[in-house]
C-alpha cells in the first residue's frame, strides 16, 4: 500500500469496521428472527443500513480512484519524458486500470482483515469450539496460497512471458502484414499464427492446473469448515447442548469469515495491472536542471559564440553536428544553409536549450549558455519553428502565446491574418506558418530571431511574410535563420554553410 494516501487507508478501515459490525448484527438478528421470531424490524433496519453502506463505500472508493487518476494525469503531463503515443495512451486510457486496484481490491483487502476478526471474536463468546475450528482453518488459506504461489511462481512467470510472446507474436505478424504481403509471405504465416497460439494454449492450461490449486484449497477450506462447524453444532443441538439461536448464529457467521478472502482473491488478478500502471506512473520524474543560474547577458550587446560544438542525440549512432564554430555579433543577421540532416535545426535547438552540446560550448558574451537562467534567456528569443504546432484555441490566443499583453491585432495585420484572429478551425499550412511568424514578432521584448524556414514550397503570401518579418522585425536585432530558399539569403548579412 505504498502508493496509497494515509487518509484513504483510514477511511477504508472505518468502512470495513462498519461492514463487520453490520455483518455481525445481521447474523445475530436473522438467527433471532428464525429461532424466536423477535427482531424483525431491527433486521430490516440492519439490511437497509447494509445497502446504504455498500452505496457509501462504492461512492467513496470511486471518488478516491477518480481523484488519484486526475492527480496522476497531471503528474504525468508535467513530468513524463517518454514517446508521445505511449504517454497519450497512458494519460487517456491506461490510468483507468488503477480503478480495480484502488476501488476494488484494496477495500476488499481491508474488509478481509476486519470481518474475519469480528466473526472470530463474536464466535469465541457464542461457541468457542466453532471459533477454534475457524481460527485453525482460516490461516490455511494464505499459507496454501503462498505454498502454491511459490511452487508456480517460476512457471507462472515463464507463462506470462510466453503469453506476452504469443500476444507479441500475433501483434508482430499483424503489424508486419503489409511487409509480409509485399514479399508474398502473408499466406505462409497463417499456419504459424495458429501453431504458436495453440502451443501457447497447451502450455497455459498446464500451468493453470497448478496455479488454480490455491483457489481449490481456498474453496475447500471454506466449504469444509462450514461442514465442520455445522455438523457438530447440529449434533450438540440434538442433545440440547446449545440453543437454536446460537447454532444458527454459528452457521450464519462461519461462511462470513471466509467470504471476504475469496472476494479479495478473485479481485487480485484484475487489480495486478492497475498496480503496475500505478507504479509506472508514480516513478516518472523529470531530471532536475543544473543548479547554476546566472543572469542572462543582454543580447543587444552580447555576441554568441559556438565553440567546437558537437551535438549527439542519445540513441543515434552518429552525431547530428560535429566541431561547429561560429561567432554571431550583436545585431548581425546570419543564414545557415546546407543539405537536410546537416544539423541546422539542431543548432537552433541548442540555442533554445532543448539539447545540450555533447562537447564544446555555446557562449553568450563570456558565459556558457548552460549556466544561464533558462526562462530569462528564452525571453530574449523569438522562434519560428519549421513545423509550428497550433494549440487548442483561437488564432489570437495562438499569436499571444509568448506575450499575453501583445498587440495581437497588429501582429496578425503584419502577416495578413487579421480576418482570422477569432477562428479556431483548422488552418492551411501557409496560414499556420504565418501564425508562427506573428507569434514570434508579437514578442516585442525579444532580442533575437530564430527562424527555421519550412522546406515545403510556400505560397507567395507566406513567403513574402517570412521575408518581411526577417527584414523589418530584425532591424536592430540579431537573427539566425535556417534558409531553404535563395530568396531569404538576400535579407541577411552573412551566409554560413553546414555540410
Amino acid at each position, binding site marked *: 500500500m505504498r502508493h496509497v494516501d494515509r487518509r484513504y487507508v483510514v477511511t477504508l478501515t472505518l468502512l470495513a469496521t462498519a461492514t463487520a459490525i453490520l455483518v455481525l448484527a445481521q447474523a445475530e438478528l436473522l438467527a433471532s428472527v428464525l429461532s424466536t421470531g423477535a427482531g424483525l424490524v431491527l433486521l430490516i433496519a440492519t439490511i437497509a443500513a447494509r445497502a446504504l453502506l455498500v452505496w457509501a463505500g462504492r461512492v467513496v472508493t470511486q471518488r478516491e480512484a477518480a481523484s488519484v487518476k486526475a492527480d496522476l494525469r497531471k503528474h504525468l503531463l508535467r513530468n513524463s519524458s517518454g514517446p508521445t503515443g505511449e504517454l497519450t495512451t497512458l494519460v487517456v486510457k491506461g490510468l483507468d486500470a488503477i480503478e480495480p486496484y484502488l476501488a476494488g481490491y484494496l477495500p476488499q483487502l481491508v474488509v478481509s482483515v476486519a470481518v474475519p476478526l469480528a466473526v472470530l471474536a463474536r464466535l469465541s463468546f457464542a461457541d468457542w469450539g466453532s471459533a477454534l475450528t475457524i481460527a485453525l482453518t482460516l490461516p490455511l488459506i494464505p499459507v496454501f496460497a503462498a505454498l502454491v504461489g511459490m511452487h508456480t511462481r517460476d512457471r507462472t512467470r515463464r507463462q506470462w512471458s510466453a503469453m506476452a510472446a504469443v500476444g507479441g507474436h500475433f501483434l508482430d505478424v499483424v503489424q508486419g502484414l503489409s511487409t509480409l504481403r509485399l514479399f508474398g509471405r502473408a499466406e505462409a504465416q497463417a499456419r504459424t499464427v495458429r501453431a504458436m497460439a495453440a502451443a501457447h494454449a497447451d502450455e497455459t492450461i498446464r500451468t493453470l492446473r497448478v496455479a488454480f490449486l490455491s483457489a481449490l484449497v481456498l474453496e475447500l477450506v471454506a466449504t469444509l469448515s462450514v461442514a465442520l462447524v455445522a455438523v457438530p453444532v447440529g449434533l450438540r443441538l440434538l442433545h440440547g447442548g446449545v440453543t437454536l439461536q446460537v447454532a444458527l448464529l454459528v452457521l450464519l457467521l462461519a461462511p462470513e469469515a471466509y467470504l471476504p478472502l475469496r472476494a479479495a482473491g478473485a479481485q487480485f488478478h484484475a487489480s495486478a495491472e492497475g498496480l503496475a500502471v500505478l507504479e509506472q506512473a508514480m516513478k516518472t520524474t523529470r531530471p532536475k536542471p543544473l543548479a547554476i543560474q546566472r543572469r542572462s547577458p543582454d543580447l543587444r550587446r552580447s555576441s554568441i559564440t559556438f565553440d567546437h560544438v558537437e551535438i549527439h542525440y542519445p540513441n543515434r549512432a552518429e552525431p547530428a553536428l560535429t566541431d561547429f564554430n561560429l561567432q554571431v555579433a550583436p545585431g548581425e543577421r546570419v543564414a545557415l544553409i*546546407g543539405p537536410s540532416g546537416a544539423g541546422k535545426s539542431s543548432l537552433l535547438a541548442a540555442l*533554445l536549450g532543448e539539447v545540450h552540446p555533447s562537447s564544446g560550448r555555446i557562449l553568450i558574451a563570456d558565459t556558457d549558455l548552460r549556466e544561464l537562467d533558462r526562462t530569462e534567456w528564452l525571453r530574449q528569443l523569438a522562434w519560428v519553428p519549421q513545423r509550428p504546432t497550433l494549440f487548442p484555441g483561437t488564432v489570437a490566443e495562438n499569436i499571444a502565446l509568448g506575450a499575453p499583453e501583445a498587440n495581437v491585432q497588429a501582429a496578425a495585420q503584419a502577416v495578413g491574418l487579421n480576418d482570422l484572429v477569432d477562428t479556431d478551425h483548422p488552418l492551411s499550412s501557409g496560414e499556420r506558418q504565418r501564425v508562427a511568424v506573428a507569434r514570434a514578432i508579437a514578442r516585442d521584448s525579444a532580442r533575437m530571431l530564430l527562424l527555421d524556414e519550412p522546406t515545403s514550397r510556400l505560397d507567395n503570401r507566406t513567403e513574402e511574410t517570412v521575408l518581411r518579418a526577417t527584414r523589418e522585425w530584425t532591424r536592430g536585432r540579431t537573427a539566425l535563420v535556417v534558409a531553404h530558399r535563395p530568396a531569404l539569403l538576400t535579407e541577411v548579412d552573412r551566409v554560413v554553410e553546414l555540410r
Partner: protein
Amino acid sequence: MKRLIAAVTMSTAAELAGIGLMVTAVWLIMRAADQPPLSALTVAIVTVRTLAIARGTLRYVERLTSHDAVLRGMVELRGRIYDSLVKRPPPLRSGDALTRLVSDVDALQDAILRCLLPAATATLVGVIALAATGFPLPLITGLILAVLLIPLSAYALAAEHLRTLAPLRADLADRTVTLREGAAELTAFGAMEHQLTRTASVIDDLAAREKRASIVTAALTALAVATQFGTALTLLIQGSPAHIVLGAVATLELTIPLTAAAQRWAEIRGSLSRVEEVLTPRPEPARTPPPLHIEPGKRIGIVGPSGAGKSTLLRSIAAAHPGAAKGALADAHVFHRTARVNVQLADPDATEEQLDHVARLVDLDVDWDAVVGEQGDELSGGQRQRLLLARALLANPDILLLDEPVEGLTIHHGDEVLSRVLGHVRTHAKTVVLVTHRLAPLQDFDEIVVIEDGRITQRGTHAELTTTPGYYQDRWSTEHLGTDAAGRFPRPHTPQMSHPT
C-alpha cells in the same frame, strides 16, 4: 462452443453445490432443534459433507474448463482474424488500428470469462432454484430484478457515461499530444505553465463527471444487495422455512457481481464490434491505378515536401504490381526475430553467400542469428535501415521500391551506400522507384516526379527540373548553395565553416 457449454454446466453445478450446502446445513440445524432421533439427520450430515467437497472440486474443474474453452477459442479467433486481414485489400488500416485490434481480441477473452460466464451461470442457477422451490413470487421478482433489470440498467448507464466522457477524453488526448509535440515551443514562449493549467481543468472536469456517475452506479450495486436480502426477508415474512430463506440469499449472492460485469460489457463492446467488423468479409473496392506508369528498366525518383503523398504513391505502385514490386517502404516492418529471418523473408531459399553479398552491398554488420528486438529496437536507426535495404536487394524484384532508404545514415555514408545499391540494380537492369528528400542521387535518373499536396506538380529529368522554376529548382539551389555547382554524387564531405573577416 461445446467447451463453453461444459464450462457453464460445471460452473452451475459448483454454485448449486454451494447453495445446496447452505440449504442442507440450515435444514440440519432447524431439524436438530426438534430433537429427532439421530437417524433422521444422517442423510443430511452425509449430504453436507459431500457437498462441501463437491463445491470446491467442481469449482476447480470449472475454472480449468472455462479457461481451456476460452484459450482454444482464441487460437481459432486469432487464426481467422489473420486470414481475414490477409484477404483484405491493401493498403491496410493504420498501424495503431492493428495494434488496437490485437488488444480487442484480448478484451474478448475477458468478456467471456468475466461477463458472459457469470451471467449464464446466475441465470441457470436462478431457474433451477425457482423450479426447486415451486416458483415463489418473491424469488421470481428478486431474480428478475437482480439478473435482468439491475444489470441492464447498469449497462445502459455505463454506456451513456462513456458516451459523455468520449469528447472529454478526445480533448484530453489532443491536448496531451500538442503539449508533448509543442513542448519546445511552449517552453521557448514561456507558455508551458498556462497550457498545463488549461489541460488540468479538462482533467478535473473528467474526474468530476466520473465522481458524479459513481453516485448512480453505486446505487445500483446497493440495490442488488437490497434485492438479495429483501427477497429473503419477504420469503421470511411469508412464512417460508429457514432453509428456503437462506437458500435464496445464497442464490442471489451470485447476481451481485453482475452489475460490475454489465458495466464492463459496456466498456468492451467497442472491442467486440471491431473484431466482428474485421471478420465480416467485405467486397474489394475498385482500385484507382497509380498516376504513374512504370516503364521497365527505368529509374524514377519521387520528391516533395514531407506529408505531400510520396509514400502513398509508392504504396499504390506496390499494390498495382503485386509480386513484381518489392522493396523497403515507409511502413516496412522489422519482425521480432533474428536478423536472418528478417532478411530471408525476401527469399527463404537464399544461401549464406547471397545473404553476405547483400549485407556487404549495404554495409550491414549484424550477427545473423541475433534477435533484433521488438520492431528492431535493438538496432540503431542506420542499422535498421540497412537491414531493410538488404532485404529489398535479396528479393531482387523487377521493380525495386525504396522509400528514404538511407535515412539515419550520415549524408556521406548514405550517399555511398545508395550509389552502390543503385549501381548493383543497374547491372541487373531492373526498375527502381526511389523516394528521397536529398536530390543529389537523382542527377542521372530517367524521370523525377514532384509531388505537392497529394498531386504531381512537376515531372522531368534533373536537367529539366533544375531549369524550371518550382519546388525542385528551389530545393536543388539550397542543397547546392555555396558549393561547387557541378556537385557530383557521391561527393567528398568535410566539415566546413566560414568566418566573418
